[in-house]
């Protein structure tokens, strides 16, 4: 979908200071470029629920964190996401890999396709679905709109394999 360099450039442009992440086979490939990027610090956590709470602490401390996880990690994140985004109303933005969206060769019948978007809807996270590299500007615009409105948001990145 995107190269690490493209994502690093985007995050720098958006003023992201910390990327809190658990990798998958698509978004994980961005890590090296992000780690080389001045002004962006990658924080690798053990599970996705942690990511939201670490991001909350960073936000309280004046940083501009972004959560970068796969949709399976979104499922794992539930209570932490609820607490950070809804109890405390913190405007944390996330970029979420959408497993098997582009093809199901590795995992035929992958239930990520069934549950990912309804889960985001259930958690009331406004998201944009990104299915083509030409849409990088959609992420930029959505991020900026969320920041301007002081609300959370997500970019859902279509992935082609598990």
């Amino acid at each position, binding site marked *: 979908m995107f190269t690490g360099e493209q994502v690093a450039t985007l995050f720098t442009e958006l003023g992201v*200071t*910390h990327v*809190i992440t658990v990798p998958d086979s698509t978004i994980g490939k961005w890590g090296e470029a992000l*780690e080389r990027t*001045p*002004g*962006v*610090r990658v*924080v*690798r*956590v*053990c*599970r996705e*629920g*942690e990511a*939201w*709470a*670490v*991001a*909350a*602490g*960073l*936000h*309280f*401390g*004046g*940083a501009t*964190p972004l959560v970068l996880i796969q949709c399976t990690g979104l499922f794992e994140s539930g*209570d*932490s996401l*609820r*607490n*950070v985004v809804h*109890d*405390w*109303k*913190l405007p944390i933005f996330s970029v979420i890999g959408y497993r098997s969206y582009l093809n199901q060769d590795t995992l035929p019948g992958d239930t990520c396709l069934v549950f990912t978007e309804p889960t985001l809807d259930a958690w009331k996270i406004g998201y944009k679905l990104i299915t083509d590299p030409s849409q990088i500007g959609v992420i930029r615009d959505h991020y900026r709109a969320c920041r301007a409105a002081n609300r959370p948001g997500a970019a859902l990145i279509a992935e082609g394999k598990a």
Partner: protein
Amino acid sequence: MPLTEAVAVVHQLRRDDDVVISSMGNAREWMAMGPLHPRDFVFVPSAMGHATCVGLGLALAQPSRRIIVLSGDGSLLMNLGTLVTVAAYSPPNLVVIVFDNGVYEVTGAQPTPGAIALGVEFTTIAKGCGLSSIHRWSTLDDWRRGAENAFAARGPTLVVLDVAPKPDAGGPRSPGPTAERAKRFREALLDSSIRRIRDYPIGD
């Protein structure tokens, strides 16, 4: 040792510029000790087990400020991996205090799996995760004697305190609307910190 007195030691030693994050039963005790400081974060409501994660984020964002997290054994068991994350980024300004009573106190003192398993040794786990500033105290006198040095040590520091449960004390009540509290807490931290974050060494 009694929980109230154990928490009071922290209350007495906290510096004006420290951040204190309290949660679950210890938040109830903390709030009973007097007016909240602008840099107190009563993590109620919480996602259980995530006070340490919030503290880690704060410690990374504000490296010149000491961040003290008050947690419990049940909370830590829900999120043990965070000790690994803390060790990985090793913020020297982070102090995590675990009040270990062997039960989920705020729900009526049901035993944690750690207590059923004949007592989990959190200090050993922490050492295995890569932490080195680790302390455990079982008596209030020992905690009082050791607390100052524990707070002064280069962190991240984990302190485990054996405390007696207060099964009838109930859970903590939120001290006010969360959105307002979050806004005020952030404002109390941001007087000069934006520049510090940009200056923070990357990848050290």
